[in-house]
């Protein structure tokens, strides 16, 4: 497989819910080893787009390719195989509530890895550490975790199979600013050190301005901008101006 091919390709995706058109021809590509964020007003279908990319919800028209596999046209076995090569973190973590954190992380390893049993526990520990959790957290039940820890545990599970692409749905929502910034650094580190491509959906201005390589702005069912954050900030569009003006107001006091 071509290493320089994009990790994610979205081509002319159209999504309709009844009469309501959410996406009206959305196209973009995400290169490997980059951190890309999708922003847009509420209701512009950011999360829906993410669900279409990972194969949870079928687009009305258009094509989605992840690591070269067409998620909606390829044979079932090929889609299943590619699903092992990416990880997804859901907004609320979506940890399995009947399993401990360590068991949650071990689920994908046991299901797909075929790994030697004696490596399982050390590998779970490594994943927890990569997500910034202590080994002690592994023994806890998801209901005993704070919001930030739940998100970290979810990342640890998403990282379990050494994914090439990681999808994050609002990774910093519901976290306090300090924890949120720590989470941003964590995601940046994952991109820099493990070389994964990360695509995240966010409302968090700080994430967008500090750690993201590329910004995709959705508006009116289309891609309004697809550029590094510095260039997007300079664009003259009412929504973009309004979005970033919050920051300008703050910095001007």
């Amino acid at each position: 497989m071509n290493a320089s091919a994009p990790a994610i390709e979205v081509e002319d995706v159209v999504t309709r819910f009844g009469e309501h058109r959410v996406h009206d021809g959305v196209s973009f590509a995400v290169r490997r080893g980059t951190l890309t964020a999708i922003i847009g007003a509420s209701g512009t279908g950011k999360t829906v787009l993410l669900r279409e990319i990972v194969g949870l919800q079928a687009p009305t028209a258009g094509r989605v390719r992840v690591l070269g596999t067409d998620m909606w046209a390829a044979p079932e076995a090929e889609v299943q195989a590619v699903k092992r090569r990416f990880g997804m973190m859901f907004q609320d973590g979506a940890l399995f509530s009947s399993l401990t954190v360590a068991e949650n992380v071990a689920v994908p390893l046991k299901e797909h890895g075929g790994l030697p049993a004696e490596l399982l526990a050390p590998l779970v520990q490594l994943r927890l550490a990569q997500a910034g959790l202590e080994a002690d957290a592994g023994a806890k039940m998801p209901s005993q975790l704070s919001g930030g820890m739940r998100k970290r545990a979810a990342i640890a599970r998403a990282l379990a199979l050494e994914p090439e692409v990681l999808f994050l749905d609002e990774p910093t929502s519901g976290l306090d600013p300090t924890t949120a910034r720590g989470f941003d650094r964590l995601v940046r580190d994952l991109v820099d050190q493990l070389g994964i491509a990360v695509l995240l959906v966010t409302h968090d201005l700080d994430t967008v301005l500090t750690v993201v390589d590329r910004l995709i702005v959705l508006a009116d069912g289309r891609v309004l901008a697809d550029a590094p954050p510095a260039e997007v900030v300079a664009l003259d569009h009412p929504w973009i101006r309004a979005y970033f003006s919050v920051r300008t107001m703050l910095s001007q006091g």
Partner: protein
Amino acid sequence: MLHLHGAWRLAALPALWPRLRALPLAPGIAVDGSALAELDSAAALALLWALQQAGADPERVDWRGFDGAPARVLLDTARRQSHRVPQLALPPRPALPALGKEVLSLGHLLRGHLAFFGQTCAAFGALLLRPRLLRVKELFAQIQHCLVEAIPVVALVTLLIGVTIAYLLGLQAEKYGANIFVVDGVGIGMTREFAPIIVAVIVAGRSGAAFTAQLGAMRLTEEIDAIRTLGLSPAQVLVVPRVLALVLALPLLVFVGDVVGILGAMLVADPMLGITPATFLERLRGALSLDHVWVGLGKAPVFALAIALIGCRMGMTVGRDTRAVGLATTSTVVQSIVAVILLDAAFAVLFQHLGI
């Protein structure tokens, strides 16, 4: 000297690991990574772990030819690795302490039920003083669910019970030529015991479980907290309509059960025992004293109260995760059925003493 070749990835570990463990990895061994095409963190961990297991401290290993991405991954993995690995399987609890814990938690549960009963009584007291507190719409929605929608299943089950009892009694009675006494047996048995118990069990599985699941899900999504912060009482808004609906619904369902059960007996009595419907009804009028019917119907509201209270309490106090809702729902059904049978036994003794 250990030479590493090719792509060391998680997917290759099942094949790599046995070979790695079979190697003699002496302390101070040299590891050459110059021919490595790829190294991911899982494979790096496997390498470090194998070295440690063999007694070769990675700090003292002579690492050669590692550069670029593999070197970074190796360093990063070594930095994050720890010997304090999490336990993947919880140790089984010793039997005796586990038993004690269960008994204590049972006592705790019963105390909680009693407290909830008290709170619900207080809510009903408040309702008597201010009848406008009653959520009429919610009450009718619950009656629709508990009573109207339950009639088909109650009718079907009690019809079959009536048929079965008449058939089995008939087999015995026929031997003594005492066919007609089947009417006595079915009439008294159905109205006094079978219909109330069977219907209560059905309702425990339908409505009791539904109460727990609904209220548990509402607690999960913080709807109950929202009700509280809006200055409303969850007891008035959620519990009272459900309890009241079930207490009204169960006697009526038991009556349906009485009628349909006897009807079922009548259906088999004609072809099997030669008792025509007219004879059946004639005999029933003489044999079935209304006392039996009242006893059966009188027990129903008490059963309903127990089922509704258990169902609501389990829902209102469920833990805040999805698994807890499922466990609480199961527990509601079991507790309700046990409560109904215990209450029925108590009633049997009580009515015996009262001579009814």
